C-alpha cells in the first residue's frame, strides 16, 4: 500500500513551518501533483507558542551571528508582523492540517503511522518532530472541551472580559490568579477538585481564601467538584453551561465562559512513547540526535526547541537542513561558516569539519558524545591559541567569534576572578593551581580544568597559566550545564575530576593519581535543599563534609544562632574526625548545597599520606573553633547572621543591606538607582525582611550560581569577571529570569522616557525632577520594543561604585558579600 507522504511534520511552530517550506520547494522542482509532505498541527492555528506571546511583543532574531536559512521569512519585529509573514507563506501553498494533534507514532523508517487525536491516522516514510517544549494544556476531558471562545485554556488579559459569569477550573497558582483578576469585573466560580487549595503558593492561598470570604466580591468556590459536562452556547455571545459533580450532587452553572487552568502535559512522555530515548532523567534533558537530527529511531527526526535549541532562528535553520538530509543531500549546516571562523587562527590547513572531528577524538570525555552536541559545544565556545609575546603582536585580529590569541606564560584566569567557563586543553600545556598560592599541577592535552567554579559558582581558586603553542576550548557554563544534564558520561567525568581536585586542594595528599582515584570513588556526593540539616549538635559523627557548592551554616544552641558560615572548598564537621566525635554544632544548608561526604577511612587515608599537612588542618580547625566560640558568646550577632542566612544571603556575593538604625527613609538610594539606570530603579527599599536593625531590601544579590541565568534563551544574562551579574541588550523579554529569581529582584519593564538635565529642571522646571516620579507612561516606541528584563548591575563600571550606596546621606545603605556579614553584625 503506498504511503500518504514522504515526510510528516508534527508541530507547526517555526521549526515545522520551515520544514514544510523547504519540502514545498522540492515538490515544486519535481512538479509533484500532490504534496509529498504534511504539516500536522494540534492547535487551531500555526505556531501556538508565538501566538501566545503578549500582543505587540518585539520578537528578537538572536543569535545575531547566525544566518537564517529558510524558505519561510523571519526577521526581528513585532509578533503580528512575523505571524503575518508566516501566514502569507502558508497561504502560498503549504500543506498544513490544523486540529490534528498527533497522539502516537508507530512503525519504522519508510513506514510510519501517526495516530491523531481525532482517530484518523496518517502514514509517512519519515517523521520530523517539532513540537517544541511548551507542552499542551491538560484538557477538561469531556465532550466540547476543545479550545473555543467558550472554553479557554489561557487568559491573556483579564480585562478583556467584563460583566460576565466565568467559571475557572483548577486550583493551582494560574487558576487562582486568573480567577481573582477576573472577579474585579465579573462573577467568578472557581472549581477545585479537592477540599483545599494545597497546591498554591502561600500568597495565592491567602488571596483566594480572602476572596471567597469577601462578601463584596462575586467570587464563589466549589470544593471537591469535578466537571461532568460542558454545554456549548447555541450562538456566539449567548451563555452556555458547565455541569459539575459536587458532594451535594450534580450542579449546573450557566456561564459566559469557562477558563480551564489545569497545568500542561510536558511533551516528554509523548516523545518517549514514540520510541525516542532521552538519556537522562533530568527535566531539561533533550533527546539524543545525530548530525542529521535523526533520533535513535531511524527516520524519526527531532528539531527545534524539543531538540534543545531554544531560539526561533535555530529552529528554522534546522527545519531547512533536515529536509536536505532526508533528500540525501549532505549539505553543510548553516553554522559551517561560524566553525570556519572559530578555527581560522589554528596552525593547520584542514577543513573545519575535520578539525571538529579531530578535536572530539582528542578529548576522552567527549569522544563518545553525540557529534551534534559536540558541534553545538564548539560553536558556543571560544577557541584560544597561545603564542609567544613577540608573535602575539603579529597575530591577525579576527572578529568576535574567531580564534582568540593569548600570550604564552600568562594566566587564562587569576585567583579571585569570577568566571565559570570550562576549559579543555587540546594541545600544549597548562599549569594549574587549585588554591591561592598552592602547588602547581600540570594539565596535558585531552584534560580539562575550571570545573571548580563551574560547579560552585565561586570565584576561581588559584591561577591557570597557559604555556606556548597551546590550544584551549573555553566553554560557557550554560552550555556545560546543559551537556551535563543530558549526558551522564560527561557529568560523571567532570564530577570525578572535581572530587579528586577538591581532595587535593583540601588535604594535599601525597598520593599517585591512581591511589587518589580509589579514594575519590568512595566519596559520596550529597545534596541538601535549603534548610536541610547535615548533622546535629550533640550527636556522634563519623564523617566530614567538603562543600562543593552552596553554603553551610553552623549553629550552636538553636538553629537561629549562627556561629559560622562555610562556603565551597571548606570543610564542615572535621572536628568529629580530628578530635572528639561529639558534634559541637548543627550544620544546615543555607541554600541548595552539595557536599562530598568523607568517612573516617577515606579521611585517614588522605591525611596519613601527607602527615605534614595535618598541622595545617589543625591550625584551620582551631581558628574555626576560636571563631565559633566568639560568635557563640554574642547571641545577638549570631541571631543576625541567622536572619541574613534565612533571607538567602548565603548565596549572595554582593548584596544591599540597610542599617535601619541609620536609615532616614529619604529614598535617595532608589532615586540614585533610577537616575543611573535609564529611569528605572532596580531596588525597592521599603519591601523585604528586617530583623533587629538590619533590613534586606528587594534587590539583586548577585548570587554565586545565579538562578536567573538558568534558562535564558539568548544567553543575555552574564557575569563580569568582577562578579556583577547583568543583562545584555540581547534580552528577548521572555520573563524566564523574572520567574526563576527567588528574590523578586528582576522586573520586566518598558524603557523609561529620557529625563531633562538637573539644571534645566531646577532653572526652567522642565520635565520631572531627579528621581521622580517613580511611575511613567511608556512612549509608543518603547511599547513597540516591548518589555525587557531589568535588574541591578551593581553599577558595574561606574567610577566610585554602586550609586545606591554613594547616594545615601547617612551611611545606612551598605553593599557586601557574606564574608563581611560578621563585621556588620559584630560592629553594633
Amino acid at each position, binding site marked *: 500500500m503506498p504511503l500518504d507522504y514522504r515526510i510528516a511534520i508534527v508541530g507547526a511552530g517555526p521549526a515545522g513551518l520551515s520544514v514544510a517550506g523547504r519540502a514545498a520547494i522540492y515538490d515544486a522542482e519535481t512538479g509533484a501533483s500532490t504534496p509529498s509532505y504534511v504539516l500536522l498541527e494540534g492547535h487551531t492555528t500555526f505556531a501556538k507558542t508565538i501566538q501566545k506571546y503578549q500582543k505587540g511583543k518585539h520578537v528578537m532574531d538572536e543569535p545575531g551571528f547566525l544566518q537564517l536559512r529558510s524558505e519561510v521569512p523571519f526577521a526581528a519585529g513585532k509578533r503580528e508582523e512575523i505571524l503575518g509573514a508566516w501566514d502569507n507563506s502558508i497561504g502560498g501553498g503549504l500543506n498544513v492540517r490544523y486540529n490534528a494533534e498527533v497522539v502516537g507514532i508507530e512503525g519504522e523508517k519508510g513506514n510510519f503511522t501517526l495516530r491523531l487525536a481525532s482517530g484518523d491516522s496518517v502514514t509517512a516514510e519519515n517523521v520530523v518532530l517539532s513540537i517544541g517544549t511548551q507542552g499542551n494544556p491538560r484538557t477538561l476531558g469531556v465532550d466540547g472541551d476543545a479550545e473555543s471562545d467558550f472554553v479557554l485554556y489561557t487568559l491573556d488579559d483579564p480585562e478583556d472580559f467584563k460583566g460576565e459569569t466565568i467559571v475557572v477550573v483548577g486550583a493551582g497558582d494560574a487558576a487562582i490568579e486568573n480567577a481573582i483578576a477576573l472577579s474585579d469585573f465579573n462573577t467568578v466560580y472557581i472549581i477545585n477538585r479537592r477540599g483545599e487549595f494545597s497546591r498554591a503558593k502561600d500568597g495565592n492561598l491567602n488571596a483566594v481564601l*480572602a476572596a471567597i*470570604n*469577601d*462578601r463584596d466580591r462575586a467570587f464563589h468556590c466549589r470544593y471537591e467538584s469535578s466537571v461532568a459536562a460542558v454545554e456549548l452556547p447555541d450562538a456566539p455571545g449567548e451563555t452556555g453551561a458547565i455541569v459539575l459533580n459536587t458532594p451535594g450532587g450534580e450542579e449546573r452553572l450557566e456561564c459566559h465562559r469557562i477558563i480551564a487552568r489545569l497545568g500542561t502535559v510536558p511533551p516528554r512522555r509523548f516523545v518517549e512513547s514514540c520510541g525516542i530515548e532521552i538519556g537522562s532523567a533530568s527535566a531539561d534533558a533533550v533527546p539524543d540526535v545525530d548530525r542529521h537530527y535523526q533520533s535513535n529511531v531511524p527516520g524519526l527526526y527531532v528539531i527545534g526547541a524539543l531538540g534543545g535549541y531554544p531560539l526561533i532562528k535555530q529552529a528554522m535553520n534546522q527545519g531547512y537542513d533536515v529536509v536536505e538530509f532526508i533528500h540525501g543531500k549532505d549539505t553543510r549546516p548553516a553554522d559551517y561558516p561560524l566553525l570556519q571562523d572559530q578555527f581560522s587562527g589554528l596552525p593547520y590547513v584542514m577543513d573545519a569539519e575535520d578539525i571538529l572531528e579531530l578535536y572530539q577524538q582528542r578529548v576522552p570525555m567527549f569522544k563518545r558524545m553525540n557529534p551534534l552536541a559536540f558541534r553545538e559545544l564548539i560553536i558556543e565556545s571560544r577557541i584560544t591559541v597561545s603564542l609567544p609575546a613577540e608573535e602575539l603582536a603579529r597575530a591577525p585580529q579576527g572578529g568576535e567569534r574567531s580564534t582568540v590569541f593569548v600570550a604564552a606564560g600568562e594566566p587564562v584566569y587569576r585567583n579571585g576572578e569570577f568566571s565559570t567557563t570550562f576549559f579543555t586543553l587540546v594541545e600544549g600545556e597548562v599549569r594549574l593551581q587549585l588554591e591561592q598560592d598552592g602547588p602547581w599541577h600540570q594539565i596535558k592535552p585531552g584534560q580539562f580544568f575550571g570545573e571548580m567554579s563551574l560547579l560552585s559558582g565561586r570565584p576561581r581558586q588559584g591561577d591557570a597559566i597557559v604555556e606556548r603553542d597551546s590550544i584551549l576550548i573555553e566553554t560557557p557554563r550554560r552550555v556545560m550545564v546543559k551537556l551535563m544534564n543530558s549526558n551522564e558520561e560527561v557529568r560523571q567525568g567532570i564530577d570525578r575530576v572535581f572530587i579528586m581536585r577538591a581532595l587535593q586542594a583540601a588535604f594535599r595528599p601525597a598520593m599517585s593519581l591512581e591511589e587518589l582515584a580509589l579514594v575519590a570513588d568512595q566519596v559520596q556526593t550529597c545534596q541538601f535543599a535549603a534548610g536541610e540539616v547535615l548533622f546535629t549538635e550533640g550527636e556522634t559523627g563519623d564523617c566530614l563534609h567538603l562543600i562543593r557548592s552552596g553554603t553551610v551554616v553552623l549553629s550552636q544552641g538553636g538553629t537561629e544562632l549562627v556561629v559560622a558560615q562555610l562556603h565551597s572548598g571548606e570543610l564542615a564537621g572535621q572536628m568529629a574526625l580530628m578530635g572528639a566525635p561529639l558534634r559541637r554544632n548543627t550544620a544546615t544548608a543555607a541554600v541548595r548545597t552539595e557536599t562530598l561526604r568523607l568517612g573516617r577511612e577515606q579521611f585517614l587515608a588522605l591525611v596519613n599520606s601527607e602527615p605534614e599537612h595535618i598541622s595545617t588542618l589543625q591550625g584551620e580547625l582551631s581558628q574555626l573553633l576560636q571563631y565559633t566560640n566568639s560568635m557563640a558568646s554574642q547571641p545577638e550577632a549570631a541571631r543576625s547572621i541567622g536572619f541574613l542566612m534565612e533571607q538567602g544571603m548565603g548565596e549572595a556575593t554582593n548584596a544591599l543591606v540597610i*542599617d*535601619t*538604625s*541609620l*536609615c*532616614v*527613609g*529619604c529614598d*535617595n538610594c532608589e*532615586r*540614585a538607582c533610577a*537616575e*543611573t539606570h535609564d529611569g528605572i530603579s532596580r531596588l525597592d527599599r*521599603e*519591601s*523585604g*525582611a*528586617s*530583623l533587629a*536593625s538590619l*533590613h534586606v531590601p528587594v534587590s539583586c544579590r548577585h548570587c554565586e550560581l545565579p538562578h536567573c541565568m538558568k534558562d535564558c534563551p539568548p544567553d543575555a544574562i552574564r557575569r563580569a569577571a568582577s562578579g556583577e551579574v547583568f543583562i545584555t541588550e540581547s534580552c528577548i523579554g521572555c520573563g524566564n529570569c523574572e520567574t526563576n529569581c527567588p528574590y523578586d529582584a528582576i522586573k520586566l519593564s518598558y524603557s523609561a522616557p529620557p529625563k531633562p538635565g*538637573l539644571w534645566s529642571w531646577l532653572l526652567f522646571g522642565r520635565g520631572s*525632577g*531627579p*528621581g521622580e516620579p517613580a511611575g511613567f507612561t511608556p512612549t509608543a516606541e518603547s511599547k513597540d520594543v516591548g518589555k525587557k528584563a531589568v535588574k541591578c548591575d551593581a553599577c558595574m563600571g*561606574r*567610577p*566610585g561604585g554602586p*550609586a545606591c*550606596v*554613594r*547616594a*545615601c*546621606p*547617612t*551611611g*545606612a545603605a551598605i553593599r557586601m558579600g557574606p564574608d563581611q556579614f560578621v563585621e556588620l553584625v559584630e*560592629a*553594633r
Partner: protein
Amino acid sequence: MRTGMLNWRNYRYGKWALLLGLFSIALYVSQGASPAQPPNGGTWQGYVLGTIGALLILWLSVLGVRKRSYSSSAGTVQGWTSAHIYLGSVLLAVATLHCAAQFGWNVHTLAYVLMCLVIFSGFYGLYVYVHLPDRVASNIVDRDRAAWLEELGKLDQRIRDVAAGSDAQLQGMVLSALELTRLGGNLFQQLRANDRSLVQEPGGGKPVSNAEQSVLIETLSRRIPDARKQSEAETLSELLSLFGRRQVILHLLRRDIRLKGLLKLWLYFHVPLTFALLAALLVHILSVFIYW
C-alpha cells in the same frame, strides 16, 4: 557603633572644622582692640573671615546639588553630609567673629539671622536623623507599612464578619467605628498623631471620639459579663480581641506616620531658608561694596 554621618572617616571633618574654628578665633584676636578700628567686617581679618563664611555658605548649599548628581563620583553623599554638618556648625563661629557681634536693623543682620535659622534647623535635623531611625524601626517591628495596612484590612474584614452575628445596635456601632477611623490627614494632623477617630453611639446624636478605639473596647468589655448566651459571649470576646489588635496597629501606624513626617519636615524649613539666606547674602555683599 556603625559608621554614620558623624563618625565618618573617624571624624575627619570634625577635625577640619575644629582647626577652622581655632584659626578664625586667632584671626579675630589678631585684630587687637584699637578704638579707631574696632574688630568688625571692615578689617582685613574681617574680610578674610567674611570671605570664608560666604564660601562656606555657598559650598553648604551645593549639598542640595550633589545629593541629586547621582552619577557624580565626587566623594559619597555620606562624606559630603558629614562635612556639611561640621563645617556648617563652625560657620556659626566664623560668621559671628566676622561681624564681631555688631547687630542692627539692616540687611546685614537679616543675613546673619537667616543663617542662624538655617544652622539651627540643621541642628534640629541632625538630631532627628540621629535619633528617629531607631524609633521608626522599633515601632514598626520588622515589617513595612504596607504589611501593617494589609493586616489592618484583614482585621476589619474579620470584624465585619463577626459583627454580623451580633445585635443590630452593636453592629451599627462597630461598623461606624470602622468607618469613622481616621489615619493620616493634613501635615499638621500627621505630625500631632492625634487620634481623631469617632464612633456613632446607639440612639443617634453626633459621633463621639473613639480615640485608641477606647469607646468600643469599653463597651465590649462591659457587655461581656451580661451576655445571655454562650454564642453571644463568644462573639463579644472575639470582637474585643479584634479591636484590641486594631488599637495596637492603629497606634503603631499613627506613630509611624508621625515619625516619618518628622524626618522630612525640617527640610521644608532648612532648604527654603537656605534660598532666603543666599538672597540676603548677595544683598549683604553688594551693599557692602556699594556703600562702603
